[in-house]
């Protein structure tokens, strides 16, 4: 089946649109979560959405997406607040607070799920699909709700952009400016629940953690500013969402959620390797060049110091002596210095003992050595 054919399929259109919405909202909100070191809060909130899904179902009496998502939003946000309460008001650390809330809320969800199954309600079918998501069952009406939630989240981020940015970077300074920092932080945290709600249908509660974290981490590698990072995270989220959804449609039978997660995680891997400035490859390259330059400077300044010590600008230095001094073979480095016109391999006058040719600094070499020494001196000052 070609991509064009795929895209004209009604079900697949819905899945792709849903995955794109999820990528968009989780990329944007995840960026803040990751930067505020609340990466795993998304994991806790998504697991904690399960009892909400069940409560929404019980209260509405049917599989009404609106009340289910509302329930998920409520318990997800509640879990975040319980987690804050546990860690602020007791000696429990953040990790324990996250783990406790995650597992106990999820357990409540499991209990409610079995309770609903016991009610023998015909319409309960597929409720536990929220565990892994059920992308293929996405309806046009679900999309409208997911789109609405995404729009609300994006509008809030746009309206409070500079406040969110400052609170994420330097909450203390934000307080000194008179911003309501506590409220902004609660808002940022609870908004992650919005992303979770959008993700329930697509990837399910278990894999949401990666949807929050991965686009943000990938985008971080390429960007210097929060503006770039958030836009890029949204883009990465959307693209890998669509890619995963299409892959799932092509494969017929492979779950959509895991494929989306694997797509976005691959982007993380590629970004961490290749991104300029922060990528591993670039770092290795930079380190190699720095080592190279340092070696050049060291040999050059040694020649200069020896000349200065002997008060002889054309002091002739033996190759062997440089090797011993630096503890390594300097010949290759000296050859490169020679090519740069900084040093010369000159004949020793016949009346002097020792090897027949020695190294001498050129005038350009002296200037360069002085420049290096001066800049070193500045750094040490």
């Amino acid at each position, binding site marked *: 089946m070609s991509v064009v054919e795929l895209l004209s399929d009604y079900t697949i259109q819905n899945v792709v649109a849903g995955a794109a919405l999820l990528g968009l909202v989780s990329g944007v909100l995840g960026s803040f979560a990751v930067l505020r070191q609340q990466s795993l809060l998304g994991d806790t909130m998504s697991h904690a959405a399960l009892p909400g899904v069940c409560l929404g179902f019980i209260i509405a009496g049917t599989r009404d997406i609106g009340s289910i998502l509302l329930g998920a939003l409520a318990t997800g946000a509640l879990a975040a607040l319980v987690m804050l309460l546990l860690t602020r008001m007791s000696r429990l650390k953040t990790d324990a607070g996250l783990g406790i809330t995650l597992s106990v809320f999820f357990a409540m969800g499991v209990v409610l799920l079995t309770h609903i199954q016991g009610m023998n309600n015909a319409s309960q079918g597929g409720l536990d699909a929220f565990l892994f998501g059920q992308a293929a069952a996405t309806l046009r009406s679900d999309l409208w709700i997911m789109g609405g939630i995404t729009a609300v989240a994006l509008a809030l981020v746009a309206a409070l952009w*500079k406040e969110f940015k400052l609170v*994420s*970077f*330097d909450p203390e*300074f934000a307080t*000194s*400016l*008179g911003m309501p920092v506590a409220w902004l932080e609660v808002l940022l945290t609870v908004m992650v629940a919005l992303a979770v709600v959008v993700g329930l249908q697509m990837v399910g509660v278990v894999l949401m953690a990666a949807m929050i974290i991965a686009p943000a981490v990938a985008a971080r590698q390429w960007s210097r*500013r*929060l503006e770039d990072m958030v836009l890029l995270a949204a883009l990465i989220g959307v693209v890998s969402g669509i890619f995963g959804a299409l892959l799932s449609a092509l494969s017929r039978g492979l779950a959509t959620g895991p494929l989306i997660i694997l797509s976005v995680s691959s982007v993380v891997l590629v970004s961490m390797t290749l991104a300029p400035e922060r990528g591993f490859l670039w770092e290795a390259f930079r380190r190699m060049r720095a080592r190279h330059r340092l070696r050049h400077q060291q040999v050059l300044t040694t020649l200069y110091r020896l000349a200065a010590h002997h008060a002889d600008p054309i002091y002739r230095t033996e190759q062997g002596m440089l090797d011993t001094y630096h503890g390594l073979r300097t010949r290759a480095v000296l050859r490169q210095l020679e090519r740069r016109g900084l040093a010369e391999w000159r004949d020793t006058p016949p009346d002097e003992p020792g090897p027949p040719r020695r190294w001498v600094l050129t005038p350009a070499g002296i200037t360069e050595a002085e420049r290096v020494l001066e800049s070193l001196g500045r750094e040490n000052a």
Partner: protein
Amino acid sequence: MSTTLHEPDLALHVEDLTVSYHSKPVLWDIDFDVPPGVMAAIIGPNGAGKSTLIKSVLGLVPAVAGHVTLHGRPYKAQRRRVGYVPQRSSVDWDFPTTALDVVTMGLYGRLGWLRRPGRRERDEAMAALELVGMADFARRQISQLSGGQQQRVFLARALVQKADVYFLDEPMAGVDATTERAIVDILRRLRDEGKTVIVVHHDLQTVRSYFDWLLILNVRVIAQGPVAEVYTADHLRQAYGGQIALLDQDTFLSEEAAAEAAVRAG
């Protein structure tokens, strides 16, 4: 709060301030006044409550008792007249933002809700970066700046606040000599313009040369006033207790080292 001015002649007036962290008091009944147009240092041993005093004045840490006025009015009414430089270590420098961005943040309070920084704000921020000698690094990601450069960016962020009273929390900690000189020069210039500068400082050796007003603190006020009157061995001993012997030795050693270096250089 009342609208009548309370001690309007003082840049900062702290009265009977008591602050506690987790119900353990860290500052006891602090009375502290700073006249306008001085450069004041707050010194004291570790755990003396120096940073807490600043934070409490700025409303970052709640007080158990006491009150604070800036130029005669409570802080909340004077926010626009205050500039603040937190400790450099208080933020994550791996945050994706540029030097220019950080400085622009100093203008967020003035901008108010829903308004974005525009060209004017960027120009102001650029001018502040120029003042601290960091104009060339405006577009640089902050994680790539050295400690001293980061500190200058923080200072520039306070400068754009165009304040009357500046609070700086250990701005000279862990910075290189060039940056320290640059910071002191800028602070002096501010003082000469009639602004008030209040600095939490850790280096006893430079107190006399940098500052003209001094508060010696150790949970309570040990002494305060013009540096020349307050910086005495007796007061320091009261604040630092046994540690002062070490400090004396330190001063002595470093003077000797300096002399030696001078001889070598000569």
